[in-house]
């Protein structure tokens, strides 16, 4: 009996090492944005004067995908190859192999901030209020139209809205106390020695094809600090008497139809990362680190004009 049990245990343990040879791979890499991507031009509405502000909070959502090939022939800027155009006026589908983002839209409690807050960009409530109320001079207002100038009121409002009790439950905050009482700071982008900004990314379950390429873009904020990749009519709906609105969420076909959302001022990848391993097993065996899989998002859309 003891021999049987031991044999079964060995068989069970060896089962944990079973390799399914899945054609999908998880990719961890690094995206690098030029310094200019973190520069936002603030316009003084009264005087018309402009001021350039370099700040990690000005970095928009970064959308990444994996595609068969990249070309500048279709739109004048680097863009994935497309399938057939089926509907007039709508570009062809890029049929990506996978994708992901660095930062996503998150709802920061007030409808005034719908589609204007990306995760991994703001540390604290004070950080958000400083950015909008002071730097941009575009104050955050609550549902009554009153300026939100107190971080404590901001926090209390959020806790009440979401039934939360700690800052770490709010994913739009990147600095908070963990369960041990330690300060955690996990902003996505860090400035490197060259003055550029880099962040790690994960692309889960990408269907592997040799010679496929990582491409993507950063959605730069508009003059009103809104983003073309976010839809104000999507996301969770808030219904509380007359305070009726959607939280806002990204469009669902961003990497299928990138050209619908890319405008002048956005940054795209010009030299995509190319997967050279012959198959998914070989890619896994290569055990590449995040720094091995690096893409630079340095093509400024509109600069070709």
């Amino acid at each position, binding site marked *: 009996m003891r021999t049987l049990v031991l044999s079964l245990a060995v068989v069970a343990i060896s089962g944990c090492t079973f390799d399914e040879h899945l054609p999908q791979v998880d990719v961890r890499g690094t995206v690098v944005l030029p310094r200019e991507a973190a520069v936002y031009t603030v316009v003084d509405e009264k005087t018309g004067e402009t001021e350039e502000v370099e700040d990690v909070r000005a970095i928009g959502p970064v959308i990444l995908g994996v595609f068969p*090939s990249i070309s500048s022939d279709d739109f004048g800027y680097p863009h994935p190859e497309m*399938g*057939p155009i089926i509907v*007039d006026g709508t570009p062809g589908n890029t049929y990506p192999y996978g994708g992901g983002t660095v930062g996503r839209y998150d709802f920061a409690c007030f409808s005034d901030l719908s589609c204007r807050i990306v995760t991994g960009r703001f540390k604290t409530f004070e950080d958000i209020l400083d950015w909008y109320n002071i730097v941009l001079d575009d104050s955050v207002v609550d549902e009554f139209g009153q300026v939100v100038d107190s971080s404590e009121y901001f926090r209390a409002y959020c806790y009440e809205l979401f039934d939360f009790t700690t800052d770490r439950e709010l994913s739009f905050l990147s600095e908070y106390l963990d369960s041990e009482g330690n300060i955690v700071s996990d902003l996505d982008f860090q400035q490197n020695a060259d003055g550029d900004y880099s962040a790690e990314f994960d692309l889960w379950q990408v269907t592997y*094809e040799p010679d496929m390429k990582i491409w993507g873009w950063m959605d730069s904020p508009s003059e009103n600090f809104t983003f073309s990749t976010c839809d104000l009519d999507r996301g969770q709906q808030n219904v509380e008497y007359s305070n009726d609105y959607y939280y806002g969420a990204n469009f669902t076909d961003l990497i299928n139809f990138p050209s619908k959302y890319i405008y002048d001022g956005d940054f795209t990848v010009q030299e995509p990362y190319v997967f050279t391993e012959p198959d998914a097993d070989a890619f896994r065996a290569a055990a590449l680190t995040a720094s091995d899989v690096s893409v630079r998002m340095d093509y400024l859309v509109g600069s070709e004009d």
Partner: protein
Amino acid sequence: MTISKAILSISVVGLTLAACDREGRTYLSEPNPDYPGVQELGEMAVSDLTDFRNSREDVIYYGRLGAAEPGTYGGATLTFAGTGGEVCVMVDPEAVFWNESVSAQSPTENYAYQDNYKDDGDLDLEVGLTAYYTGSPGYEMGDFAAVYEDSLGNEVRLEFNECYMAGYGGLPDAHGGRGAIEYCTIDTSVHPGKSYTVVLNTFSVPLDDAMVDYAFAIVEGACNDIASSVGGLTECTMPAEARDPDDMSIPYEPFESLETAFCNNNLFEFCTNNPQLCGDED
């Protein structure tokens, strides 16, 4: 081996052998040379909503499909010209069916009888531009799919079927199910005047006669608008889909009465008087 184990073994072998006696042939339908399993119906006109509302029997097409040859898909195809607006395509395969009421606390008298499942068929709708249809009308059924190969040789299936039906929870690509009406709105504004193909895929034919009768119509306007105009698109919207076995121009009387009873919420009385058209009473 003890006696009890021996008896158990013999019983298992006996049951196994007895199971081989079950053929299931009664669940298969034989093709009928008079009503082919694959049919092409030609071009049909798109009806006006007013005509559909006021003289429905004049604009409904009544058809009959036989079972397809074994190993092949069956169904009917027809075409219509894009109007430049929305059109509603709908099909109601025979027959009426319902779920038997089994609640002990609040039984529904009207559904006390079982449905006769042997008289129900099912047709599934697909609609798309004729240019994308891959079948050979009247000979072989097809679909609206194409394959796109990207520059790395990866193949992607493209779907050009424009007939989307929402299921539970609003999920697309649903179907009406056995005996139930199916409908979808086709927006032809991008391709006015172009030929569209409607595919009625035979999902099942009734087991009692191996032929599925159906009512079909194409009406101008969105299905939601038509539903509002005629009080909903239901089993009762295109009545008398089961036709007389010998004369397609007239309804099949026993079924028409059953359907009328269903639509008038009077099933219990009808099934009591015509038990052969319903199943067993609960």
